Every structure is written in structure tokens, then in C-alpha cells.
């Protein structure tokens, strides 16, 4: 196992682990805000949850970009020769 493979594996693990922190925190905040809104105004639950789902999908995309970068490093690494 040469240096490039070791660095790639480390890079993939770091990309996913650190890339998951931001989306996790922000998704938590978004869900908390939506819960608060539904508790205050239960009749708006439909609109709030639809917007929440779309927003969560947007936030989640950043985590998925990290996953794709990790997969590229592991399976389609351009530097492995």
C-alpha cells in the first residue's frame, strides 16, 4: 500500500466525518425551529413541514457532496495511476 492510497483513505474518512458536522448541526436547528413554529401555530403544520423537507434536502446536499468526494477518493482516484 503506497502513500497515495493511505492519504486517500485518510482524506475520505476526514471528508465524511468533518463534512457531517455542519449539516447535522444546521439540520438540528432547522427541525427545532420548525417544531417551535408548529407548536405555536398547529394549523400551519402542512406548510411548515413541506418547507422543512425542502430545506432539509438543501442542507443535506452539502453532506452528500462530502460523501461523493470520499467515494471519488476511494474508487475513482485520479492520482493512483
Amino acid at each position, binding site marked *: 500500500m503506497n502513500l497515495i492510497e493511505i492519504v486517500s483513505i485518510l482524506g475520505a474518512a476526514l471528508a465524511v466525518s468533518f463534512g457531517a458536522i455542519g449539516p447535522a448541526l444546521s439540520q438540528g436547528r432547522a427541525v427545532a425551529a420548525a417544531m417551535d413554529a408548529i407548536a405555536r401555530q398547529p394549523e400551519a403544520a402542512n406548510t411548515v413541514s413541506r418547507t422543512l423537507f*425542502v430545506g432539509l*434536502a438543501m442542507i443535506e446536499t452539502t453532506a*452528500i457532496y462530502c460523501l461523493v468526494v470520499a*467515494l471519488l477518493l476511494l474508487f475513482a482516484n485520479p492520482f493512483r495511476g
Partner: protein
Amino acid sequence: MIRSPLESHVVFSLGPMPITAPVLTSWAIILLLAGGGWLLTRQLALRPGMAQAAIELVVETIEGQIRDTVRVAPGPYLPLIGTLFLYIFTANWSSLVPGVEPPTAAIETDAALALIVFAAVILFGVRTRGLGGYLRSFAHPNVIMVPLNVLESITRTFSLVVRLFGNIMSGVFVIGIVLSLVGLLVPVPLMALELLTGAVQAYIFSVLAMVFIGGAVEDDYPRVTAE
């Protein structure tokens, strides 16, 4: 070594063209949806039977969602959005059939779906506003925003691809890894979670497609009217 999720398994070759497993599954799903739709709508009655009532419920729910999301008449968009939703939903849930991998776990399928949305946005935008009006909508707040708006319409298509691919593929991947560690009953909760993710992703893909089309169609900048 686990098989790379970025390349797909070739089943057989049709002349010089290799046919992969996701293509076969897509064909099966297309046949199933088209055949099912044809069979169910062959005898439509004014007093609906059980099957007709069920599909009317589906169509009306999608129609209501379109109306709630972008507040336009859902008529011209219902065929595209409904087909996108039903196809992605069926594709994501096709992993219920043993031995079948969802075709949306291959990046090519998702790229094709997102390109359809990309073309539909331009088509609906030009049809509603005319070519000049649609092009002018890129310079919406200011002319400086033109490169950013053009860039955005490309990156959001790319993010549609990556979102669907990442969600479905990671589910398949995780189930595969757990299955290779512990075979019996342990992957079942993960599979249930994957069904939930599949349904949510189908919903999100069609809602986002509708939001993009709605953004191209609606007149969001105030016209100067001679009063």
C-alpha cells in the same frame, strides 16, 4: 474489495452497446408504470370503482401539492411532475424485490432525470414568457447577476443529480456492508429506513423540479403599467 458504486454491472451486450443492470430495471419499471396506467385507465367511469378511486386519489394529491408549492394552475405541469414522482418512487422502492438494485443508485439514471428537469425549465419558461422574456429573467434584480444566475441554473441541476444519487446509493452501500458483516435480520431496520428515505427523496425531487419550473414561469418582477 467492495464493487465501486460509480460503475455498473454489464448484464449483456446488444450489438456494440453494453446493457447494464440499472437500464434493465428502468425498462421493467417503465413497462410496469405504463402498462399499469393503461390497464387502470381503460374503463373510466363516472362512479369510480375501487382501483379508479385509488389512482384518482394519487393524481389529486400530486395536483394539490403542485398548487400549494408554486400557486399556479397545475394543468400543464401535472404529467411531467407526476411521472417524475411515480418513476422515482417506484425506482427507489424496487429494492423491495429481492436481487434488484434501485436504478436511481446509478448516477447515469439521476443525470438523465435531472437533464429532463433542466430542459423542462427552459421549455416552460420560453413557452410562458417568450424567448426574450425568459432570457431577460436571468438579469432579474440587476444585469450584474447574469453570470451568477446562469451558473445557478447549472449547479442546481448538478445538485439534483448528486442529492438523489448520494441518498439512494449510500443506502444500498450501507445495507451491503452490514449484510456482509451480519447477514440475519440486522439489515432489516436499515432497509425500512431506506424505504423512508426513498419516498422522501422522490417527493423532494419532484417538489424541487416544480419550484424550478415555477421560478422560470411566474412573473416575479413587477411590470411598469401605464395607469
